[in-house]
């Protein structure tokens, strides 16, 4: 047993063996020797570099000052506990702690402590491995991960990463918010378990990875808010690296499809308009012949016209008997039927001709409130004995919240639109079987450069199919003969094409219908150049 009671003897213990000194001196990790009270007795060059102290500065000082403040308080107690009861927290084990440099800055380090008990010497040796670089790399990784997540979250598409078998690895916010999810997204789930409508994409994922090319499926119909929506699904293979996989991108294109449908709608009207303009003259001539023929028939069969009576006298014909005969055989009903048929056909031609008029020359500043009131007055004369419907039975509510009600419009055309919408609402409400009072609410409100006009009824409403086709030319839900199927389509044309506004409908069965029209306050720039044909 040697005597290590003097500090000099202890210092010699740490330094005497040149081979040990060489190893300790060349170590990349900080190596610190202490006595059982925690006083530093050895401090290698790596420790000097790590903590920023010269060995001479720290030898003889308590080692706890090399730790972050939160460890210092309990350090003496640690040592005592260990010496009295051998309860090890770090000794013989090692763990990650925070060190403190001379300048007070803190850094992460892995500290392992061993106990030395040889020939009467008792002390501890700590090895401190700097974790700063590792922590910085981890931090960088986290930042990069977050940045990548932010990037994919800010994409306006649903983005889902999958492995070669279709198991989910990543996703963005839109993907998680997708209302069609069958179950919450989870790493390792197969994609079709979360998105049942993507089941047939599984084989495409495989193909995309195998052939290293992007696969695109366009206009896939999916359920959306109780009706049909459309998505584009793209499968991008990941560049083949450590693990094969793919990124699935889903774009909701429902709105675009709707706009395309509307454009097709407008196209249809334009072609109807083009046809009508060419045909109108040809059709109106024969219609004129029929209409005039009916009027001549009626008049020349009447006993009231002197010329008729004169000829009848000459021929010895009793005109009164002829009249009675015609009455009993219903001849006038037939003639009236022909006349009504002509009137209807002529109305259809006139409506179709509206499509061929691109812009009206009679645009002028108009008070929209005044126009609504005029139209309501016109509509109030409208009642139909046959169908037992009377506009005056309808309760009309007006909700006007406008800063200025003046718009630039073709007064007659907008009146036609309003009258059509109001009449349709009135007719729809008279068809409803419910007992409540028919009620029409007209709301006018500011909407940026537009005035928004809403006409809401409490009638029976319409189903999705009807709502989609409601503005289509020749589409009607009215009994044969009561509507030409052109009214709303003409209204749509007037609002969209002539006034550069918009017209759409919100409706569901049992919830009434609300037509929403937006009309620009100011003239659109091209209106002055477009001449009416």
């Amino acid at each position, binding site marked *: 047993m040697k005597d290590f009671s003097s500090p000099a003897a202890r210092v010699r213990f740490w330094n005497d063996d040149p081979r040990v000194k060489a190893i300790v001196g060349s170590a990349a990790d900080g190596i610190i020797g202490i006595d059982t009270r925690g006083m530093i007795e050895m401090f290698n060059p790596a420790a000097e570099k790590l903590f920023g102290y010269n060995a001479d500065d720290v030898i003889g000082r308590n080692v706890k000052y090399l730790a972050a403040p939160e460890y210092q308080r309990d350090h003496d107690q640690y040592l005592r506990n260990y010496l009295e009861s051998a309860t090890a927290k770090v000794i013989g084990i090692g763990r990650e702690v925070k060190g403190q440099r001379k300048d007070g800055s803190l850094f992460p380090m892995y500290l392992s402590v061993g106990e030395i008990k040889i020939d009467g010497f008792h002390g501890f040796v700590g090895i401190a491995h700097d974790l700063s670089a590792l922590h910085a790399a981890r931090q960088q990784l986290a930042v990069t991960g977050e940045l990548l997540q932010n990037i994919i979250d800010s994409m306006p598409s649903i983005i889902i990463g999958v492995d070669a078998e279709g198991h989910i690895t990543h996703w963005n916010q839109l993907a998680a918010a997708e209302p069609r999810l069958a179950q919450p997204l989870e790493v390792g789930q197969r994609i079709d378990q979360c998105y049942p409508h993507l089941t047939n994409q599984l084989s495409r994922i495989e193909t995309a990875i195998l052939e290293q090319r992007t696969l695109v499926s366009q206009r896939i119909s999916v359920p959306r808010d109780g009706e049909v929506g459309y998505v584009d699904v793209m499968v991008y293979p990941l560049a083949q690296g450590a693990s094969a996989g793919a990124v699935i991108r889903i774009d909701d294109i429902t709105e675009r499809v709707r706009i395309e449908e509307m454009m097709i709608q407008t196209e249809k009207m334009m072609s109807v308009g083009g046809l009508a*303009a060419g045909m109108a003259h040809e059709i109106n001539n024969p219609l004129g012949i029929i209409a*005039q023929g009916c009027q001549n028939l009626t008049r*020349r069969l009447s006993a009231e016209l002197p*010329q008729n009576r004169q000829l009848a006298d000459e021929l010895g014909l009793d005109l009164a008997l002829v009249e009675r005969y015609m009455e009993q055989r219903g001849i006038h009903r037939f003639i009236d039927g022909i006349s009504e048929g002509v009137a209807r056909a002529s109305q259809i031609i006139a409506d179709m001709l509206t499509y061929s008029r691109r812009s009206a020359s009679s645009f002028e500043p108009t008070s929209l409130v005044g126009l609504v009131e005029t139209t309501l007055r016109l509509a109030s004369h409208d009642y139909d004995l046959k169908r037992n419907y009377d506009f005056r039975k309808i309760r009309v509510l007006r909700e006007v919240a406008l800063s200025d009600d003046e718009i630039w419009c073709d007064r007659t055309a907008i009146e036609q639109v309003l009258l059509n919408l109001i009449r349709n609402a009135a007719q729809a409400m008279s068809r409803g079987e419910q007992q409540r009072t028919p009620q029409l609410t007209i709301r006018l409100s500011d909407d940026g450069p537009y005035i928004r006009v809403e006409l809401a009824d409490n009638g029976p409403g319409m189903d999705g199919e009807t709502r989609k086709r409601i503005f289509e030319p020749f589409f009607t839900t009215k009994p044969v003969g009561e509507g030409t199927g052109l009214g709303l389509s003409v209204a749509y044309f007037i609002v969209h094409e002539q006034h550069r506004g918009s017209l759409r409908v919100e409706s569901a069965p049992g919830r009434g219908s609300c037509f929403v029209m937006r009309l620009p306050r100011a003239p659109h720039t091209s209106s002055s150049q477009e001449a009416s*044909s």
Partner: protein
Amino acid sequence: MSPRVLIIDDEPALCAGLSSFLEDEGIGVQIAASGAEALALAEQNNGLQLCILDMRLPDIDGNQLALRLHQLDPSLRFLIHTGSAAYSPPDSLQRLGISERDVFSKPLLDMGLLVDAIKRLLHD
């Protein structure tokens, strides 16, 4: 003396229907199926007072015809009876006193209105 009206239209059945109605009203009617026929009749100067004029004729544009007829006889009055719904009298015809209310669209669902217009123009 009954008013004398010239119906100018290339559709014979239409002319027949119109003329029958007008004759029942005691109006004297002549018919021309083309611009050339109408000009020939007007040149004869046989007491025509008013022309009912189709705008689309086989040989001449209706507007042009009205101007030519007016040159032949400035006292002639005109009613337009046209198949195109968007017709509006051009300035050249408005200068002759032809206005929107003198335009009748085919099909004429009430020929009584045409008779009223004839009476209005000829009694002015």
